[in-house]
């Protein structure tokens, strides 16, 4: 199959083509750029929701209920569930979709698991491009799920328009451990498993932390309660998401879109540059040479970088 044909099928919402397109993105093959270029004009219509939070907070079950609610409202939904790649073996165990399997057979739902692999610069690029595929394929709502540990949840802010952070009562230590980073990126906070004891304490804790961290003045992140198992509180959550979406549209959309585009462009330049330089260096074995020199303290990394760049620019 040719890229053009694949792109056409993606735009038609054909499931196997969407899946293959994401594989191409994941493998970051040369075709990936071409593919993105072909579908890019058709993106920008979906609302992208990021969902993160500590393990055991019930994210996946909550997502299942969110999908059901959006489906009830006639929206089509795509999900990207991100799980970590083992740094030792390069393998990954992707088990997030287990809670959404009943929806796997809905023709207007597409769920894809992605491993973080060991992308230079984190998961952001592959995930962002996978989101674009789903966007181009006509999904109204795209949900990106990440485990709330490490840097992936901060990267979610680069991709999603509305970020939801999910906690559960009794995960006090986890809330503490997550610290400020995650509090800053959240637009909506959810205390799931609200049928538990200590639910109100969790709400109060989160509100207190938000007051310390909340810099974005015009949007006050609400703290909602849900019981994902029964779906209690999910319609209210959807209302808040819609409210946030309207907020983005009415006030700051242009500014934010611009910022996002700017970040994306900057990163693309960075990555592209790196690709070009590294590939050549590795071919010639120069990368190793510099590494050795740095290790022997013959040169510092910054000077090395300057030299490399100088040489590259001159050769062009």
């Amino acid at each position: 199959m040719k890229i053009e044909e694949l792109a056409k099928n993606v735009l038609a919402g054909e499931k196997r083509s969407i899946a293959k397109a994401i594989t191409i993105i994941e493998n970051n093959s040369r075709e990936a750029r071409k593919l993105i270029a072909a579908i890019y004009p058709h993106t920008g219509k979906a609302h992208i929701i990021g969902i993160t939070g500590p393990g055991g907070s019930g994210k996946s079950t909550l997502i299942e209920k969110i999908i059901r609610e959006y489906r009830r409202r006639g929206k089509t939904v795509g999900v990207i569930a991100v799980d970590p790649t083992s740094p030792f073996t390069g393998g990954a165990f992707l088990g997030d979709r287990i809670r959404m399997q009943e929806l796997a057979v809905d023709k207007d739902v597409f769920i894809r698991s992605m491993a973080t692999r060991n992308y230079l610069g984190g998961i952001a690029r592959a995930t962002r491009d996978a989101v674009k595929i789903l966007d181009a394929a006509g999904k109204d709502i795209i949900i990106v799920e990440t485990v709330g540990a490490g840097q992936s949840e901060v990267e979610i802010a680069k991709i999603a328009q509305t970020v939801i952070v999910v906690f559960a009562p009794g995960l006090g230590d986890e809330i503490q451990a997550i610290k400020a980073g995650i509090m800053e990126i959240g637009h909506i906070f959810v205390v799931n498993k609200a049928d538990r004891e200590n639910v109100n304490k969790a709400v109060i804790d989160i509100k207190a932390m938000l007051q310390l961290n909340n810099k974005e003045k015009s949007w006050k992140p609400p703290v909602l309660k849900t019981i994902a198992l029964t779906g209690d509180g999910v319609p209210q959550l959807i209302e808040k998401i819609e409210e946030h979406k309207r907020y983005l549209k009415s006030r700051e959309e242009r500014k934010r879109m611009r910022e996002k585009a700017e970040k994306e462009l900057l990163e693309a330049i960075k990555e592209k540059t790196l690709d070009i330089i590294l590939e050549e260096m590795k071919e010639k074995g120069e990368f190793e040479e510099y590494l050795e020199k740095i290790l022997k303290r013959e040169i510092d990394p910054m000077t090395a970088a300057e030299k490399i760049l100088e040489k590259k620019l001159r050769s062009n």
Partner: protein
Amino acid sequence: MIGERKIRVLIAKPGLDSHDRGAKIVARALRDAGMEVIYTGLRQTPEQIVETAIQEDVDVIGLSILSGAHNTLFPRIMELLKQKGLTDVLVVAGGIIPDEDIPKLKEIGIKGFFGPGTPTDKIVRFILENTPKRREIS
């Protein structure tokens, strides 16, 4: 960076039995062999398994069953795969499958059978050797 192609495997348990010890050990062994393993949990319908295989664009499907319903469920899965055009996916099976059932299951396209007592590295090797070279773009 140019990423490398990873073998993606769907480990699925059709049927209602809950003996997932074997499925999980295999999932772990495949992950440790550098594969990306999608695990969908217990009691998956043939439709769910095939839809998942499509959406996850897997190279391999591993089916595990101990309930005795393989003669009903496996042909249904293979038929759906064919209908959806997933003919280049390697399908293997494990669990309790009597020897005399195997020829019929091979005929419908299941390539490997791993009964109780199979060392995990044998399964890993089989997948590495038999996963079709792919494909996406010509």
